């Protein structure tokens, strides 16, 4: 999967968990926090992405991530290992 495809997958996950966010306007350099996503929903979004990609990444690794680009990067890196 390309990074662009993973970004789309993250946006799908955002739509599913927080339907009030219009993901058409979401930019990759934004953070989930910037979008007003609460802490529980942020974790739910990340876990949904992992499940979709069939990856098992320790959640602490997402703690270092600063924005959606970081999430995409981490998912991409693990999915290509």
């Amino acid at each position, binding site marked *: 999967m390309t990074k662009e495809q993973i970004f789309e997958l993250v946006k799908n996950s955002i739509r599913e*968990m*927080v*339907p*009030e966010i219009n993901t058409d306007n979401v930019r990759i350099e934004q953070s989930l926090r910037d979008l007003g996503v609460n802490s*529980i929903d942020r*974790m*739910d979004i990340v*876990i949904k992405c*992992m*499940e979709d990609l069939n990856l*098992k990444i320790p959640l602490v690794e997402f703690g270092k991530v600063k924005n959606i680009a970081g999430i995409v990067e981490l998912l991409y890196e693990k999915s290509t290992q």
Partner: protein
Amino acid sequence: MNRVAVTGLGIVSSIGHNVSEFKHSLKNGRCGIRSMEHDSSKVAASKILGALIHDFSFNDILEHYSEFDGALVSRLKACLKRATVGMKYAAVSAAEAWTSAGLKSENITPERIGIVVAGSNLSCALQYNLHNNFVTSPEYLSPSYALQFMDTDYVGTLSEVFNIKGEGFTVGGASASGNVGIIKACQLIRLKIVDVCLVIGSCADLSPMEIQGFVNLGGMGGNVFAEKPLEACRPFDKEHEGFIYGQASACLVLESIEHARTREAEILSYISGGAIALDANRLSTPCEDGEARAMTGALGEAGLKITDIDYINAHGTSTPLGDITEVNAIKKVFGSRTGEVWINSTKGLTGHCLYSAGVVEAIAVIIQMKENFLHPNLNLYTPIDNECRFCNRQIVEAEVRTALSNSFGFGGINTSVVIEKGEQPQERKR
């Protein structure tokens, strides 16, 4: 004692998704019991009957409320977007009670509102449904589960929806939970801890495992009448054979009389007293003495005598031992007056709504008082007792001013509350 006003009602049940539909079903003796085709495939029993909530659309109902309170609808949407269906029933019943009481978050001090959620183990179905995936991939368990598995998630979520900042907690009392909730909320108001208190009777969203537990315990009916679901729940009839599971969430807005009068709210009825009496018994067996003490205690707290009571909304689950024990307890309390007091059981129409039964039945009492009727005991052909004045299979026109509503739970938890008719509009103006 100080009576507490009831100013709002809300319900989602198998026989109505709001108070108006529920009232119509009570008047017409409409029963919600059907065969639980889908779920019975997972349970080791030939057939399971239940009065389940069908055709419930959270979004359609929210659409209806958006006319009255758009801000409330936005909060409901945001707070409940991934909630369990049980939580959605609770929120919708609370929204109906809240709006029918004429409450608006901006007009009321949040610190003076309380919330009591009645029922325990509210996430059984959620746990059951997550279990298979959890066994194979624990990593993918939704973090929301850490909030959802605690019953107090209902307190947290509903307090955010309605901006409630006073006291809030859950109460458990098995099948008597609803009455326990009403009694505790009245205490909060009488102690002046809050002015307004929501009491939510939670829907028992059982998984096949809990259903199987009840089947194996021998408590469930629907055997002889397996092919005739509408005839299976027969409180106080000689052919009764066990309870039928029902689903409902119901909500009362309780309020101090002063507070209700100050904001010129209509007082639908009063909770005049209530009592909880234990049997010192961990089993499911009912006990005449404990049930009698609950009724006597409720009357005593209300400062009323047996001659003041016109009607008893019985616990009446349709289990042989439970029904006769309640009849004997009523005779013990009412003595020679037994034949003068009307008795019916709402469970004949709704099934046994377990945690919410007390709140569902309080709403049934209030509706019947307001509309001067008593709903039928749908399947009462041959009463187990000839002294009691049971409603028969037809609606009865009757003016009821004061009623007892009984709820008894496993573990010897006996409760009864006294409900009095509300003021007529002309009385309020005086």
